[in-house]
């Protein structure tokens, strides 16, 4: 076989290229890291995406606004409610209508439950990336409780398509408040156990502290948002800087750390779970009465361009709609958090060990369908 120039170059530097993915246990989906290694050391990483591109944006152009909501579930499937809410809010703002307080409260509670569920799954998978397999089952065990709440009210566990432009698909189940209360008390007992099992563990701390440092400048330059950006001190919580739904009514803290390493990205998410519990705690007993769906003749935003951003479990999701006044968008574009979060990996994981690459990509909490859309 004829050796290419690239091969010779690699050989001289004693480097070799290894493909992590598209089928690899630690990429959590069909993401491919083209990784150059020197022994155990990672020299550079080229992320390749597009393996699960479904053309959601193009498909949405031929669907009406209520119809295209169900496609947003399939982007970041762990923040399905929040994605739905983003489209719903954008369309509602475009049409200049306001949903009732009841809808706002329920949307916020569902979004925060969704955020907890997402962080639980991330915690499970992050532990597994580091080799602690038991975390996976504890996280999923507690996530089931949230999924039960979702299933009882919305009829689905993962891809709910419950929040729709103009309100909600249906009213929540009468048990909703009771179950959510139960979950809050239950999970407040279980969260310290998470810390006991993993956070305090000396091996875990050694594996994550000081690994994958991301500076504030890098976070801003690459557009890293969400918990990953907040670990570097980037105040990017849309719930705080551009509050929507019921967020202006609740008191919560934006969790930020300035250290910017894997361990602090981990801590941001662990503390966000506490904050989300607090938000739900403030709202769950005060859900006002009101209509759950606006009486709209037709969902047709006026001609123009509209943008709405929300905070998903992974960062800032922007929905950009170009409307020609018809029932379908002329163009819809999603600014998904994972796409921006992914490409910093070369910057923060280079010169680390291959095991650190797994830890770092786990700490960015990537959901691959959200990258490709």
């Amino acid at each position, binding site marked *: 076989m004829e050796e290419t120039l690239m091969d010779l170059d690699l050989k001289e530097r004693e480097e070799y290229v290894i493909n992590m993915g598209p089928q690899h246990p630690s990429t959590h989906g069909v993401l491919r890291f083209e990784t150059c290694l020197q022994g155990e050391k990672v020299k550079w990483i080229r992320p390749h995406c597009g393996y699960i591109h479904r053309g959601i944006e193009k498909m949405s152009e031929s669907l009406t606004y209520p119809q295209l909501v169900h496609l947003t579930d399939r982007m970041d499937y762990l923040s399905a409610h929040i994605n739905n809410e983003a489209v719903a809010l954008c369309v509602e703002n475009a049409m200049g209508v306001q949903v009732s307080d009841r809808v706002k409260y329920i949307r916020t509670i569902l979004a925060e439950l969704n955020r907890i569920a997402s962080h639980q799954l991330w915690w499970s998978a992050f532990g597994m990336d580091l080799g602690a397999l038991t975390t996976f089952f504890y996280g999923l065990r507690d996530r089931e409780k949230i999924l039960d709440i979702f299933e009882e009210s919305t009829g689905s566990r993962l891809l709910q*398509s419950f929040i729709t432009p103009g309100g909600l698909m249906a009213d929540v189940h009468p048990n909703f408040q009771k179950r959510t209360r139960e979950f809050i008390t239950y999970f407040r007992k279980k969260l310290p156990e998470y810390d006991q*099992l993993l956070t305090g563990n000396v091996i875990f701390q050694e594996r994550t502290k000081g690994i994958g440092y991301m500076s504030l400048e890098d976070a801003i330059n690459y557009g890293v948002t969400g918990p990953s950006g907040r670990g570097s001190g980037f105040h990017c919580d849309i719930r705080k800087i551009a509050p929507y739904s019921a967020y202006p009514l609740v008191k919560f803290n934006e969790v930020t750390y300035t250290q910017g390493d894997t361990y602090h990205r981990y801590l941001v998410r662990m503390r966000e779970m506490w904050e989300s519990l607090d938000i739900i705690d403030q709202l769950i007993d005060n859900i006002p009465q009101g209509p759950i769906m606006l009486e709209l003749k037709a969902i047709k935003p006026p001609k123009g361009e509209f943008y709405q951003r929300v905070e998903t479990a992974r960062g800032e999701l922007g929905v950009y709609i170009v409307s020609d006044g018809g029932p379908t968008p002329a163009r819809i574009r999603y600014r998904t958090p994972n796409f921006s979060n992914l490409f910093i990996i070369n910057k923060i994981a280079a010169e680390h060990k291959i095991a650190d690459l797994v830890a770092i990509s786990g700490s960015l909490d990537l959901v691959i369908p959200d990258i490709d859309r």
Partner: protein
Amino acid sequence: MALLSTLKEVGNYFREIYQGVASLVNGMKVTGKYFVKPSTIVTQKYPENRAELKMFGNFKGELILIHDENNHHRCNVCNTCARRCPNGSIEVIAKKVVGADGRTKKILDQYIYHLDTCTFCGLCVPACDENALKFDNTFEHAVFDKSKLVKVLNKPGSSSITTNE
């Protein structure tokens, strides 16, 4: 001075070991606790518990056309559900019949539901003004032949209440 700092370092070395081991033991307490408590097992024995397994009432299993005890459904072939469906999973096929009063009427011939392309967005059920549709709680949809997932929802011999009136 040098001796003191060396001693300090030695002390740190052993404190590190102690703290490390303590944190490991702390983690083992969690797994050990669950090991000795079988009551915390959350696994459900699925095929055995079929009888007592109860899905939530709202669970979206598959779409059905509601039939009453006289084998009547309420579909009036308005086609709204098929138009609301984002994936074209619903086909409402009408046929023309001559009624008792001599006028031709459109009645339901076949209500075809493609379970294989359905994404369970739930837009069809509220779309129906007659409340003719609902989601059933069945969930065992696995089949060996994809064509079995294309279902005709109106039962044989059924007729619409609206056409009988």
